[in-house]
Structure formats: C-alpha cells, structure tokens
C-alpha cells in the first residue's frame, strides 16, 4: 500500500512500472490490475484557463488517503494499492491522480478502484483554483461523474 503526494508532474505509467518493479513479492500473485488516471483537460468552452493550482491540507490528505485505502482493503480482497495525487501547479494534460489496485480477481479490482476515486473525490481535502493570466478562480464543486 503506497500513497504519494507529488508537487511535480508525473508519468502514471512509469509510476506503475516502478511500483511493480519495487514489489517483486506481488509477481505471480495478482491476476487483475485496475487503474484509474484522472487528467487535467483543456478548457475548450472558450475560457482561456492556462493552468490550475491544487491546494491541499497535507497531514489530513495523507491520513484520509490512507483511510480510504484501508477501507477498500477491508471490503475487497486486495493484494496492493497505489495512490498518487498531485498538488501545486498543474497544466493541461497533466495527470492529477493515479489509483491502482492489484488483486487475484477482477471482481475485486474493478469495484475497489471505483471506490477509491469516489471516496477520494468526496473526502480528500484538495481544492482546485483555475488560473487565467492574472485571474484566479476557485473551483467550487466537483461534478459527480
């Protein structure tokens, strides 16, 4: 179970490679890996948002991501989880969050991965601010899906 909060851009696929390479005890044990990557989109409705700043409450973030992962492990038979979340300045096409679940079977990995992102979005203390030139505007709510 690994949780990372990163202040710089990351490549989700390289992080997954690294995680598996660093956990050789998992090899041959998992049949199913479910992954979700949330990425910053372009703003193509005419607004010229250039970037976002993602603020968080570090001690609480760490604690809540840990709690969410632990809760997932109590609900499903999971071998390992990896959670990576960005903070700080984020640009279009940057990965914001990576969630991965390794399990013997896909009947565990799929719902656990979905659970992680839904819980993270509703509970983890992160706040997005859109930046356009000199203008900064707080995002007031997450969309449900």
């Amino acid at each position, binding site marked *: 179970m690994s949780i990372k909060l990163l202040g710089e851009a990351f490549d989700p696929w390289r992080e997954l490679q690294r995680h598996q390479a660093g956990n050789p005890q998992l090899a041959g044990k998992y049949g199913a890996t479910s992954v*979700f*990557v*949330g*990425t*910053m*989109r372009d*703003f193509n*409705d005419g*607004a010229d*948002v250039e970037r*976002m700043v*993602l*603020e*968080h*409450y570090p*001690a*609480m973030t760490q*604690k*809540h991501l840990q709690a969410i992962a632990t809760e997932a492990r109590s609900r499903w038979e999971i071998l390992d989880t990896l959670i990576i*979340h960005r903070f700080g300045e984020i640009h279009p096409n940057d*990965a*914001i*969050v990576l969630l991965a679940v390794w399990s013997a079977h896909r009947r565990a990995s799929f719902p656990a991965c979905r659970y992680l*992102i839904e819980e*993270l*979005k*509703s*509970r*983890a*203390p*992160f*706040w*997005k*601010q*859109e930046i356009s030139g000199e203008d900064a505007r*707080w*995002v*007031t*709510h*997450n*969309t*449900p*899906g």
Partner: protein
Amino acid sequence: MSITVKFFASLRETVGKDEAILDPARAQTAQQAWEAATDGREMPANTLIAVNMEYAGADAAVTDGDEVAFFPPVTGGGGDVLR
C-alpha cells in the same frame, strides 16, 4: 497551551489568514474556535470542519493541543469537468 485554527482555499482568502493560534480558554467547540479566530464573522453555509484531521460538526469539542481546520467543499481528483 493553545488551539491551532487553520483555513484553506477560498475560506483562507475570505478570512484573510491561513492560521490562528487560540488560547484554549476561548473555545470549547469548533464553532467557538471559528468565532474567536475570525473576530465573530459568520461561517459560510457550506464550510467543512476537521478536528485533528477528522471531519467534525460545528459543535465538536475542541481542547488544548487540538488542530481545527475550516475549508470549502473539496475538489480534488480528476476525470470530471471543472466548469
């Protein structure tokens, strides 16, 4: 001997500070901690509260050494529309 009060995101900008240190005698609940730290300002309706990093209600007890945080609805993650 103190209670630490923290403000995040838009609420930090609204109250004009990111942190206040209170004498524990000034607040027995999160609500009282808010009032003491903001000079009696009204708490916005959608404010979330955490006492020692756990979500709590406005009437949650606070005591010496606690950290009380106030913040707007969370907007982390990815994979959704921002506007």
